[in-house]
């Protein structure tokens, strides 16, 4: 636990580092830390937003909040990028960088444009640190649905609004399918980790556990990566996060036609939401995916709300959940 806190606070400027060091909450339950130039230091902890005071106390009173300066944001950017902003040029064009540990840093400021689109970003005045969570065993409740019949894995689409734990669920699904679970031997899984969020690779080595039979193509565009993996690593299952572009869909069809199984995630809150997206509608109408897992944050982050099959038949519906912890570790504890 201490390691995670240390690893995380080291990305901030000296003063903010000292303040966060005084914060005594469990950093495994922290979801976001937000910095704005001349704005209060905010922390999202157990689904609640708090101001962080100079003495490290989480408060609901704005007057208590520590106010970050522009220079602190600049300093923070230098440390977050390991003194190498240039190495994150491509990610910065998309408005985020992923750091060691798989945490995603969202940034906003003044965008610089050229003929091809966004060239870079300057005057970075807004930073949102989204903490990655590795919850081993959280995919346990969905495994019986992902394994359709026998050892066959179904093409699965995880649908979830942002901050509802789709990447965390995908990560654990990959780990369990790769390692193998009771009655289901492990299979080779290929992961295209475009934003380094799934495996959180550092110098090519995944920091998150993704299973013993998993090959990861880090920082690679999904469409190209899926094709490459099929040609080079012969995976049985391919896993990708946040599909949505036309190229992604073409690659998905290619993967399925090659006999590989696909597990993907997408932003949305229902199958109807997915049907609204022109490029994804075709996949739903053609019944390409055999399972749809819909997540929400009712009661807790990563709540499995509903599971459907390819025809839209409901296979599972969650009972109403009481408000609980970020992730219920006890319930999903899995050896």
């Amino acid at each position, binding site marked *: 636990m201490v390691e995670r806190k240390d690893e995380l606070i*080291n*990305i901030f*400027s*000296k003063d903010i*580092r000292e303040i966060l060091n005084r914060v005594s909450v469990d950093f495994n339950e922290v979801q976001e830390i937000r910095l704005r130039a001349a704005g209060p230091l905010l922390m999202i902890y157990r689904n609640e937003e708090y101001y962080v005071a100079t003495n490290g106390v989480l408060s609901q009173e704005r007057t208590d909040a520590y106010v970050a300066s522009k220079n602190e944001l600049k*300093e923070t950017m*230098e*440390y977050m*990028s*390991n*003194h*190498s*902003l*240039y*190495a994150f*040029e491509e990610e910065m064009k998309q408005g985020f960088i992923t750091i060691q540990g798989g945490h995603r840093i969202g940034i906003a400021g003044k965008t610089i444009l050229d003929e091809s689109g966004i060239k*870079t970003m300057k005057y970075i005045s807004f930073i949102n640190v989204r903490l990655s969570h590795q919850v081993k065993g959280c995919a346990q409740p969905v495994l019986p649905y992902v394994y359709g019949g026998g050892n066959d894995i179904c093409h699965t689409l995880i649908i979830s609004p942002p901050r509802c734990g789709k990447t965390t669920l995908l990560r654990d699904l990959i780990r369990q399918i790769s390692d193998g679970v009771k009655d289901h031997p492990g299979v080779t899984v290929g992961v295209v980790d475009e934003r380094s969020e799934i495996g959180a690779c550092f*110098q090519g080595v995944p920091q998150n556990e993704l299973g013993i039979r998993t090959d990861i193509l880090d920082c690679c565009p999904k469409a190209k990566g899926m094709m490459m993996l099929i040609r080079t690593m012969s995976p049985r299952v391919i896993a990708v996060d946040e599909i949505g572009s036309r190229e992604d869909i073409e690659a998905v069809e290619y993967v399925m036609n090659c006999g590989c199984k696909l597990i993907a995630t997408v932003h949305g809150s229902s199958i109807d939401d997915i049907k609204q997206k022109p490029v994804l509608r075709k996949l739903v109408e053609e019944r390409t995916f055999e399972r749809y897992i819909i997540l929400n944050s009712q009661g807790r982050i990563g709540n499995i709300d509903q599971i459907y099959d390819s025809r839209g038949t409901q296979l599972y519906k969650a009972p109403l959940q009481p408000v609980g912890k970020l992730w219920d570790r006890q319930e999903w504890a899995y050896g």
Partner: protein
Amino acid sequence: MDRTYFKLLGAALVIISSTGLGFYMAAQWTEHLKTVERLKKMILLLKGEIVYANSPLTEAFERTGKKAGGGMGDLFVAVAERLIRQQAEPFFTVWQEEIDNLPKEVCLSKEDKQNLKGLGEHLGYLDMDMQERNILLYLEQLDLTIGYLRKHKQEKSRLYSTLGIMGGLFLTIVMY
């Protein structure tokens, strides 16, 4: 008899040490040239790591330093290690301090060190183009230094060794 003997011995010592000093100065010139040439190779490696492999500074410095070895290699590794420790120190500060801590055996002039510090001022800042231009600018400075050291190598070597011998002889005559 004894006095003459001691005088001759003293004269021989003066001439030997003065000649030695001259040859040492000439060797320093050559060593300086070798160090700057080695530094140029390291900067080219660093450029490759940054521009082609897109490595962050910690990785680029560590790899280049380990590959190159020697005093300059140790400088690069030391910088990488301090950055990895994440002690909330800006890169430029770390870079300047480590250059100031270079051992005396590393044969670099004050001006060379100043130029080397200048390289670190903009390293890591902004985009890849900026890194490449910054490194290319420094490589041009190194080329000028190497050109100057090479051009004057023979002449300076001869000058220092001759001055050493002649200076020794002159001192001996004056003291006799």
